[in-house]
């Protein structure tokens, strides 16, 4: 027996002091009220029977005193919180990882898998031993402990109320590392995973997770495997016709049966396309929708069974995307006349192009709020206070220094990943003459001749504005005759105006999102798909948050509000078939054991109950004059 409360010495001292007081009270003769009677022999007749039982009366008084001392002993013992030594030393420390990933929203078990998982954990909490302690953590893209290690059943049950399912995948490795960190140093440690088993490999960038001496248990939740989900969804505008767009999506049947589904594509809430499909078991079906139009902002894909019912996991039956926002770019072209350039600029109807001669440049530059200026074989003395494309720059006004003439330079080195050069094939462009550009520090050489020694295409920033410089006259080359020419021009303008053809149409839930906001903003506000707004921190010009729900978000930073979409798009989460076994490395999780519902090992509770019972008996016997 070990006292987890007050130490034994203090208990003995308390019992001795209070017990002595009780004894003194019993030893002291009870002072009775005095009353006169006219004829005491009549009272003696009544008391005659009692006198015959004087010894019994003394015994009753002794019993009463012993009862009081027993009461005191019970209360003092309760103060000591006595526990069986073996249970205290061998108390378990349990970390329960509740899977709150998207697959736990499956409704194959009523009401859903997460609710069943919470009920399972509730049973475990109620069956904790007196010396056991438990920590409950929510496992999704992050690991969220819901409280400290505790043996308080009611507290643990309250913590469970705060768990909610997310549209994310579970980061099993992160959760296991958290659990092993918590359990480090405890002798009897146990990790209980309550999940459908769709957790993937327990390894991350640091390698596989080692459980150490902690034992692993697994409670399986879920029953069915039938599910069809949208596992890929992407949309982009055409670079040369931004009023049209194309959509790529992928459907996956993770179940064992054929599934007939109906796929709806909604643009700005209106139906754009409707397709009925049949997916074979385990089939991944990519679908490509080219040349779509009719939506300017939002796209949504909805999946439903042909018979009108929903499958077990509705979370992956919808996907959302946002088309890049279109706006007209104002472009000033300073040229003596260039048909090739004019033709290229005509390809984008969202461009407002103004042509001026070099003489009219000074007047024109100050009149409009230009998004870009194209200098065709013209180089002003000063840099314009906007983005600029220099075609064959000359003189001191060029953003880069121009040196020596190059004979038949070719693009020997190309920075293909730069947005300006996307979709461009410049390797075989023939150039008669060109000039070597000398970039400054921070400038990016996008193309260079002489095996990279002579830059002929440079990009960078000057005075906070972007520039691109091409070191040859395009009319001295065959570039205008190629598809690459208009793409180059439009890519440059898109780059200047931050319109990216590779615009990311949606984010993935579970990732840490870093969304660019104005540099002066320190805090932003995001409105989630469920309508709840939450503040998010801004770090180095980016709002940082972890997305847990799929749908459309609104991010407000300062005066600017931007919208973005987020999707689950995870085939592993769509595969909802519960796993019978859970493996971590070579360790197979066992069944949960050692939890016996209804057994509380806090002895002090029972001591108080017995004390209350004795007190009730004492009260009853006293008032019935049995012990007086």
């Amino acid at each position: 027996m070990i006292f987890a409360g007050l130490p034994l010495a203090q208990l003995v001292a308390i019992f001795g002091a209070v017990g002595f007081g009780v004894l003194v009270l019993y030893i002291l003769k009870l002072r009775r009220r005095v009353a006169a009677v006219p004829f005491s022999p009549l009272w003696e007749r009544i008391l005659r029977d009692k006198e015959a039982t004087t010894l019994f009366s003394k015994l009753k008084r002794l019993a009463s005193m012993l009862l009081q001392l027993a009461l005191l002993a019970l209360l003092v013992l309760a103060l000591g919180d006595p526990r069986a030594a073996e249970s205290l030393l061998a108390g378990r420390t349990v970390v329960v990882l509740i899977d709150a990933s998207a697959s736990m929203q499956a409704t194959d078990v009523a009401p859903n898998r997460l609710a069943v998982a919470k009920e399972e954990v509730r049973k475990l909490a109620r069956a904790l031993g007196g010396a056991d302690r438990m920590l409950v953590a929510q496992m999704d893209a992050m690991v969220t402990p819901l409280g400290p290690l505790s043996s308080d059943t009611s507290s643990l049950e309250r913590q469970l109320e705060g768990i909610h399912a997310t549209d994310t995948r579970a980061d099993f490795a992160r959760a296991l590392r958290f659990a092993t960190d918590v359990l480090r140093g405890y002798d009897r440690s146990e990790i209980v995973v309550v999940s459908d088993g769709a957790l993937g490999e327990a390894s991350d960038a640091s390698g596989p997770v080692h459980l150490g001496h902690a034992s692993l248990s697994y409670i399986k939740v879920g029953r069915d495997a039938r599910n069809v989900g949208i596992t890929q969804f992407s949309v982009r505008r055409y670079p040369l016709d931004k009023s049209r767009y194309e959509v790529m999506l992928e459907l996956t049947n993770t179940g064992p049966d054929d599934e007939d589904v109906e796929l709806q594509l909604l643009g700005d809430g209106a139906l754009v396309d409707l397709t009925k499909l049949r997916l074979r078991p385990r089939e991944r079906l990519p679908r490509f929708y080219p040349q779509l139009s009719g939506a300017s902002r939002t796209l949504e894909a909805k999946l439903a069974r042909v018979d009108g019912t929903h499958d077990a996991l509705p979370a992956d039956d919808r996907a959302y995307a946002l088309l890049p926002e279109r706006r007209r770019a104002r472009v000033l072209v300073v040229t003596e006349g260039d048909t090739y350039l004019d033709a290229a600029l005509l390809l984008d109807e969202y461009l407002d192009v103004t042509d001026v001669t070099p003489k009219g440049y000074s007047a024109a530059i100050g009149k409009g709020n230009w998004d870009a200026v194209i200098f065709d074989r013209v180089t002003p003395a000063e840099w314009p206070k906007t983005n600029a494309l220099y075609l064959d720059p000359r003189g001191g006004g060029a953003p880069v220094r121009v040196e020596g003439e190059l004979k038949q330079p070719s693009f020997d080195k190309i920075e293909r990943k730069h947005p300006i050069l996307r979709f461009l094939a410049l390797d075989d462009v023939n150039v008669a003459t060109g000039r070597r550009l000398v970039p400054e520090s921070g400038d990016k050489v996008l193309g260079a001749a002489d095996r990279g020694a002579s830059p002929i295409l440079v990009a960078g920033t000057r005075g906070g504005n972007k520039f691109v410089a091409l070191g040859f006259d395009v009319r001295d080359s065959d570039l205008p005759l190629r598809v690459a020419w208009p793409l180059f021009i439009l890519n440059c303008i898109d780059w200047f105006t931050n319109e990216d053809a590779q615009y990311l149409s949606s984010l993935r839930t579970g990732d840490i999102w870093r969304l660019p906001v104005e540099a002066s903003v320190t805090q932003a506000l995001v409105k989630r798909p469920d309508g709840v707004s939450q503040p998010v921190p801004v770090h180095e010009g980016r709002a940082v948050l972890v997305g847990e729900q799929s749908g459309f978000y609104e991010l407000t930073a300062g005066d600017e509000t931007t919208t973005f979409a987020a999707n689950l798009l995870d085939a592993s989460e769509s595969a909802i078939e519960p796993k019978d076994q859970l493996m971590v490395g070579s360790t197979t999780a066992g069944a949960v054991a050692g939890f016996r519902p209804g057994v509380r090992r806090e002895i002090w509770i029972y001591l108080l109950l017995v004390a209350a019972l004795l007190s009730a008996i004492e009260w009853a016997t006293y008032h019935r004059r049995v012990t007086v």
Partner: protein
Amino acid sequence: MSRISIFPWRRDKKATQPLTDDDLFDEEFQRKLDYLALVSRRVFAGRLRAERRTKKSGTGVEFADYREYQPGDDFRYLDWNVYQRFDRLLVRLFEEEEDLAIYLILDTSASMGFGEAKKFTYAKKVCAALAYVGLANLDRVSIVTTSDRVLDRMPETRSKARIFKVFRFLREAATNGRTDLEDAMKTFVAQHKRRGLAVLISDLYDPRGFEKGINVLRYNKFDPFVVHVVDPSDARPKLHGDLLVYDCETGDEREVTVTAKVLQRFAKVHGQYLAQIERYCATHQVPYIAASVDVAFDEMILRVFRRGGFLR
């Protein structure tokens, strides 16, 4: 109104103090006594109390019997007619006519004055009433106050006009001391050679036994009559809880825890005690009247005493 004590364990000494009640014989009581006298006169009409016949032959006017002449007899009582006819000397005997000695023995022990002294007040009224009846009928009335001895004595007196002497005597009477009827009656018997009616007015709370005092009267040829003054509140004491009870006369202490059950048992024991007294008197042909203080005094005298055969 009951007095609230700061120290409840202290004995209330005043509980045993004799009561002095100057209003004991007020006008109303006087009128009742006058009325009682009339009733008594009607009851006693023809029953010559002051001229009572006795078993002794004497100088009365009522012829009683004849007997043989004995030398020394008064010649005046010889019946000469009989001598002439039968030649026998017979002496005529006449009944002796005497008055009656009535002794009113009033218990003045402390128990009579217990509480609000209802019993003592009631006993004094009864005593006065009986004395008035006796005086009005030319009997010799004497009043004796006793506790464990004879405390005081009003000498034998006659005539209704002496009733105020009775009142004065009773007014000065006070309760005190313990009850010992045997010793008190022995003293009384020794002091009163003339036998007569001995009316014992008491609550009969005698620790040594009420029978012994009555027996002393019986054995000494007195005609005892018991007026048992009963206060019903004695059977229902207003006590509760852990108490140290003490006898107001003897001071004997007893620790007792009074509960409703105990009070029930006490009432039962008290009733048994009263029944025991009544049974004793019936067995020994001692006239017995239980005079409850809750019964109106005039009703007690006019109805209960008459029904009990004491007054006719």
